[in-house]
């Protein structure tokens, strides 16, 4: 285990990404302290440029861009992480049951997950949010609904191979029941691909959340990066910073999460990368 952490942190891309992610998480957690006023409050005249009274300037209605960015980090991360957790939990259950029992159960569950995969995921998410009415929880539900099938497939594949290993058969011969075998013997051994896929899913969730907010389908009472870009896009020529700053924030965060996910993969399967 020690060598895992060493391999993980010695990767310069992972180290840099972790620095950025730690920073973003810290900002998100401390948002009420860093920007005590509501991010929707009008604090100055519209379109004041960066490095003036406000560090990043103000938007078309005179709201502080920095305050919005700080609260946006909170929204984006919270929704992305909750949605990913929901998707991983549901996808793992479906994949584990499909892989472990096989046969008709497997066929049925996999056809259902294929049904979800055949619908273009973003359009599906838009439809879901539109039906559920835009709010934080409907964003989580929509993102989780379109994200679970890949998890289910990864877990099913892992369970299928692990199920055939002899230690699982030994547990059957010892008389263990199905659920303890699945939870105690099989799933712990499927953990590493699950962690990697799950971490990459967070990045994807941030992108979906931003895109939905950009389209005005985000939670109306929560400031978010996508919403900031959507609100600022009409003024791209006059006030470039309105779009650029939250855009860069999304870019760096998604990139960092992807690099960390890749680093996890390399550290969990060192031979794969070396040989």
């Amino acid at each position, binding site marked *: 285990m020690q*060598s895992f952490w060493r391999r993980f942190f010695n990767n310069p891309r992972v180290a840099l990404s972790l620095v950025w992610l730690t920073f973003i998480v810290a900002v998100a957690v401390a948002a009420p302290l860093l920007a005590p006023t509501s991010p929707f409050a009008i604090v100055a005249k519209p379109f004041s440029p960066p490095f003036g009274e406000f560090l990043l300037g103000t938007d078309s209605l005179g709201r502080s861009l920095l305050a919005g960015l700080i609260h946006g980090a909170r929204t984006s991360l919270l929704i992305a992480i909750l949605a990913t957790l929901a998707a991983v939990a549901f996808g793992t259950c479906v994949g584990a049951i499909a892989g472990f029992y096989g046969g008709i159960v497997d066929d049925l569950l996999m056809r259902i997950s294929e049904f979800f995969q055949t619908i273009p995921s973003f359009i599906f998410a838009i439809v879901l949010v539109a039906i559920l009415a835009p709010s934080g929880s409907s964003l989580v539900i929509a993102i989780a609904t379109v994200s679970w099938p890949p998890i289910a497939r990864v877990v099913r594949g892992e369970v299928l191979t692990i199920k055939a*290993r*002899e*230690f699982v*058969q*030994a*547990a*059957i*011969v*010892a*008389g*263990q*029941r*199905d659920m303890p075998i699945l939870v105690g*013997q099989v799933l*712990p*051994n499927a953990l590493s691909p699950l962690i990697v896929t799950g971490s990459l899913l967070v990045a994807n969730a941030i992108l979906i959340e931003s895109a939905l907010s950009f389209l005005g389908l985000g939670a109306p009472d929560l400031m978010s990066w996508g919403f900031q870009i959507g609100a600022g896009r009409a003024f791209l020529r006059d006030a470039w910073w309105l779009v650029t700053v939250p855009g860069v924030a999304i870019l760096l965060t998604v990139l960092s999460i992807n690099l960390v996910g890749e680093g996890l993969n390399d550290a969990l399967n*060192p031979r794969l990368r*070396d*040989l």
Partner: protein
Amino acid sequence: MSDAVLAIENLTVALPSWADRAHAVDGVSLEVLRREILCVVGESGSGKSVMAKAILRLLPEPHVRVTGGRVMYESQDLLTLPPAGIRAIRGGRIAMIFQEPMVALNPLMTVGRQTDEIIEVHTALRPAQRRQRVIEVFGDVRLPEPERILKSYPHELSGGQRQRVMIAMALALEPALIIADEPTTALDVTTQAQILRLLKELQARHGTAILFITHDFGVVAEIADRVAVMRQGKLVEQGQAGDVLERPQHAYTQALVAAVPSLSPRHLIGARSGAASGRPLLAVAGVSKTYSGRGGAFSLRRRRVPAVAGVSLEIGKGCSLALVGESGSGKSTLARCIVGLERADGGAILLEGSDVAGLSRARLRPYRKILQMIFQDPFASLNPRWRVGDIIAQGPIVNGTPRKTAHEEAAELLRLVGLDPKAANRYPHEFSGGQRQRIGIARALAVKPKLIIADEPVSALDVSVQKQVLELLDDLRRAFDLSMLFITHDLRVAAHVCEEIAVMKDGVIVERGATADVFAKPRHEYTKALLAAVPGRDWQLKTLAARKLC
């Protein structure tokens, strides 16, 4: 000196930093002489395969790389040749035969084309001439109907035929040296005997030198002119085959030779035959199992493969029966049916008089305490994320033993199988193959079963470890008065552990009887063939006879 085809001088191969030792091969010097078969023998991890790969520069560089020494072939050092030079030698002058022909052959090309390709790369022959040559070498390695085999894909051939194709490919250009890396390990005994005979015959006819890598002293006795023994990357002994086999000098070689399971069969112990003790512990009557798979995506007909076709046997209390057969004979399927990992299609499996065939997993649970299993692969059969103590205590806990008692018993069992009770707190990856198999045995014993089914428990282990594990099983069997169904492909192992033997072929038992009787007077043709195919049989019989004289 001019008589050497290949001279390895002081070869050293370094391993990457995460490996358990610094050098895979450590200062090995060897010569392969013209017209000889040199066997390099060693257990797993001895560096014998790495050495063979280093000769043709096939190492997974940069992690495993040569750090010193020379490999001289026709007064040039193969290790410093430019890439074009080594390519001309590979396949052309020095050919290689790999262990697993299914993996070594390209599944998308006909075997004829694959052989043709080698000739095409190395010579200027025209297509018609090349085809002629391919048919010639296919005939040479005794492939039936070379013209038809030519157009076959690897999956259409049997394991033995695939290995013959590999040999044909190696022979195609009349190389000066063939490196054979465990070429018969993946094959059944009878096929192995044929391939060994073929290699020896071809070698005599073509005068090729062969560097033959193996772990099996039986094979050495069959084929070698000279023997070199390797251990942990170092050469410990080399000499003429007869000398090394009969008068090994180095202590390690002596231990290896002594560890080869002998062909002398066990005799029945007293009146312990199954019939004498009344109702047998396990009685299997007419059990059959047919696998049906989907023929293809759109095919309506299902492919049916009968794996076990009406097998009957019984094992009495305290008796042990060896079920011997080659791969595909259905011996493992039968075992899986008996322990309930597979459901038999028909027949009865009576465990202490009650029929357990076709019971659901839940209904089988009470019988688990009578019947336990030891698995083949010591690496796959222990959950890598569980502590050893938990693995062993698992069965008793499931069956209602309090956790604390179960763990105390687990520590006791560890001591019993020759491990430190402290091992309970460690994870399986910290143990060697033999130690893991001991843990597997402890797990099987934990619920205090009356019958143990051992499915090839030693076939993944080195000979020296194999011997220890077999002795352990034997001791435990006596100590606990256990019955055992021992499944193996190796007649030598069967002879060593079991009083009774049943030979299985194509899903049916063809011969059954006391081990001593079967060995002395085999009745069925197949049993005779199996006995004749045991590698190193003559050598063993000779040493046995010599021992009796003393």
